């Protein structure tokens, strides 16, 4: 039976019916009716952030660690524009977000009213879809459609822009089961003929490699399980993108580590030399491929992706399969088993021998000393001292992010949240808050840089208010390290504006917010500091003072091929081609 409710009540009821228990938001004039409706109910918990960008990143962390959509509520104008970075981040990394924005009353739209902005216009390019709801009659349908669109097919952020008068007016409410989207029917089952061809190609490979990505994580834990089963059945090596870490356990011997710009020597060389490349849920991003015309040049390529536009976008493939990773993996496994496929044993052992030789280069190694903490060492110690717990890691963007990806192994999916596509400094801390909300008893750590953390540091107030024991582990190298590294490599060491001058005292800063601050400056202090950080209840900043000039290696310089990596021990005098300098 349809009920008459106010627009604001429809919003709340639809959220509840969609299974939402938490929203991240910030109030303002154009959403006051919804805030009033929130006040009068107790099914949905509202987390008050300190900046709307933080709300979206928190919702992203919530979504990525649970597999459920994250929900955001912000006001019109500046509330909406502040959310844009988070929305773009979610679009690039395929994170399901439903963002509700207030809008000025319908009769004021277009009049440059106070706090009016063209929210649907501005967010059209950074959402999967968006709606301006002009009457309460449409609201119930749009609310349910929004959840459907955000979570089906390739997930992504959606915006529902709701004018203030629509929030007050009455309209009919119906439940989600009554809403069927008119056009959007993403394909989840892959084409079975193509899957059969792919299985043939996989079975006959001599030098195969699995290259997996965030699509496996988005597809759900079943996809990770199926991937593990299939990869073990074949005995083939596997690597993954930054976004895909954790889908396959890092402790497994078939795991090569991450690939791409800061991937391992063995992963990138295996990609370069492979004869069959099996891409499942990754998108041939430029951080992964390096120079396109030298990318896996001798290989036949299989690409499984739920988004047809990802296939043949950057790299031409031989078999493109449009479908959800879990469905396609299930079919692959079934066909492999029913045809009693066996990998080519001799070829495979020769291939592994080659890979082991690459692995023996130990491309992630680094030298420690007694005087100064090496950033890689800090992350390794963090792992050792937290691995027995239910640990979730988020990161900011920069060298520390890459070191985290390299040196913090993940055994399970959904434990690693990082801004991959957009590379948003300021993502990690609010994301950690979202993760902690979803997993109150888990250990949630933001591995941060001293520059990045300042971009959303205000959320420390949120963490304190909601008693969220999030840990901020700052790899403090006093530089925008990644920028400094590129300046060293590309601009002859002219460190233009990349020094983190006038840093706050992070210990005092934590204390000023009512959190705990700890500092570790020497290797001998590191373990105790980390243990204390973990043991102290409540939010903590650990300011880990590290070597200022450490570079992140290995590295494929821009415009280079996978087999042209710079390794840490022969990085001296490395250069970048003129063409490479044009790239980011």
């Amino acid at each position: 039976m349809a009920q008459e409710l106010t627009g604001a009540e429809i919003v709340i009821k639809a959220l509840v019916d969609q299974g939402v228990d938490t929203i991240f938001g910030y109030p303002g004039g154009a959403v006051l009716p919804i805030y009033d409706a929130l006040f009068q109910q107790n099914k949905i918990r509202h987390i008050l952030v300190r900046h709307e960008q933080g709300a979206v990143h928190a919702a992203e962390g919530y979504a990525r660690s649970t597999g459920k959509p994250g929900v955001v509520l912000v006001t019109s104008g500046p509330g909406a524009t502040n959310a844009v970075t988070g929305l773009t981040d979610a679009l690039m990394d395929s994170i399901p977000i439903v963002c509700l924005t207030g809008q000025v009353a319908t009769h004021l739209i277009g009049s440059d009213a106070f706090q009016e902005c063209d929210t649907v216009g501005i967010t059209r390019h950074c959402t999967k879809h968006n709606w301006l709801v002009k009457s309460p009659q449409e609201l119930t349908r749009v609310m349910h459609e929004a959840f459907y669109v955000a979570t089906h097919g390739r997930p992504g952020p959606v915006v529902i822009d709701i004018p203030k008068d629509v929030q007050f007016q009455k309209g009919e409410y119906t439940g989600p089961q009554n809403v069927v989207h008119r056009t959007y029917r993403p394909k989840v089952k892959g084409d079975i003929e193509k899957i059969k061809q792919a299985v043939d190609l996989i079975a006959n490979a001599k030098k195969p490699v699995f290259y997996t990505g965030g699509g496996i994580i988005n597809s759900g834990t079943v996809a990770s399980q199926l991937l593990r089963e299939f990869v073990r059945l074949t005995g083939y090596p596997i690597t993954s993108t930054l976004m895909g870490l954790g889908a396959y356990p890092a402790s497994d011997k078939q795991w090569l580590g991450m690939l791409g710009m800061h991937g391992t020597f063995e992963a990138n060389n295996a990609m370069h030399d492979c004869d069959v490349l099996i891409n499942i849920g990754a998108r041939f991003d430029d951080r992964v491929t390096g120079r396109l015309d030298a990318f896996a040049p001798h290989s036949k390529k299989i690409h499984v992706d739920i988004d047809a536009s990802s296939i043949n976008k950057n790299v031409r493939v031989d078999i493109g399969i449009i479908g959800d990773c879990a469905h396609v993996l299930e079919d692959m496994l079934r066909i492999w088993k029913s045809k009693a496929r066996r990998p080519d044993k001799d070829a495979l052992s020769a291939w592994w021998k080659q890979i082991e030789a690459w692995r023996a280069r130990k491309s992630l190694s680094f030298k420690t000393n007694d005087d100064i903490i090496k950033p890689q060492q800090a992350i390794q110690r963090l792992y050792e001292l937290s691995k027995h717990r239910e640990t979730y890691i988020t990161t900011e963007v920069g060298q520390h992010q890459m070191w985290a990806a390299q040196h913090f192994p993940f055994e399970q999916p959904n434990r690693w949240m990082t801004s991959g596509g957009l590379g948003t400094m300021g993502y990690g801390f609010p994301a950690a808050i979202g993760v902690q909300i979803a997993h109150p008893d888990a250990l949630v750590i933001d591995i941060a840089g001293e520059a990045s953390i300042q971009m959303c540091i205000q959320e420390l107030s949120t963490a304190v208010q909601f008693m969220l024991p999030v840990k901020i582990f700052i790899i403090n190298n006093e530089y925008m390290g990644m920028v400094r590294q590129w300046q060293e490599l590309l601009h002859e060491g002219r460190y233009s504006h990349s020094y983190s001058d006038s840093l706050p005292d992070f210990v005092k800063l934590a204390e000023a917010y009512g959190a705990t601050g700890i500092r570790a400056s020497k290797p001998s202090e590191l373990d105790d500091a980390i243990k204390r950080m973990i043991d102290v209840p409540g939010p903590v900043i650990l300011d880990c003072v590290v070597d200022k000039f450490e570079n992140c290696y290995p590295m494929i310089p821009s415009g280079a091929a996978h087999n042209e990596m710079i390794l840490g021990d022969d990085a001296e005098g490395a250069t970048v081609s003129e063409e490479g300098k044009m790239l980011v």
Partner: protein
Amino acid sequence: MKKDETIERHTIAVLVDNEAGVLARVIGLFSGRGYNIESLTVAEVDQAEHTSRITIVTVGTPMVIEQIKAQLDRLVPVHRVMDLTVEANSVEREMALVKVAGTGERRVEALRLADAFRARVIDTTHTSFIFEVTGAPTKIDAFIGLMRPLGLVDVSRTGVVAIARGPEAM
């Protein structure tokens, strides 16, 4: 490699839900990703169903054309995308209104040429004509070219509309 670099011209029909912003979405896709639009036409084609049909003429390498279609197809309000250049044998038409001003010999010549192009006169004054001409874009180009020395003052073109031959719907 060589073959993939060739630039092709494709006519793509897109059936969309006629909801607010749908045209902006399509155009934004082209500008945002750097694709070309040679012409674009749009109108509602089914009032009851609220569907509109957009016809886009675009140029690009085969890989870009494939991308354009895939990108259009993933827009949420899109029902169907059809590449009329490859998926079907199709007919294309464009209409133009062409204003020519002049007197004397030039005026007579304009009328005579219009007749040869089966252009209709839809407005006339002592010193001007407006012609309505329909056909393939190349025919319209040719007609406009001929009118130029005869006093062409204004042109309004619809852009291409296209439809597949045979009994099937899109």
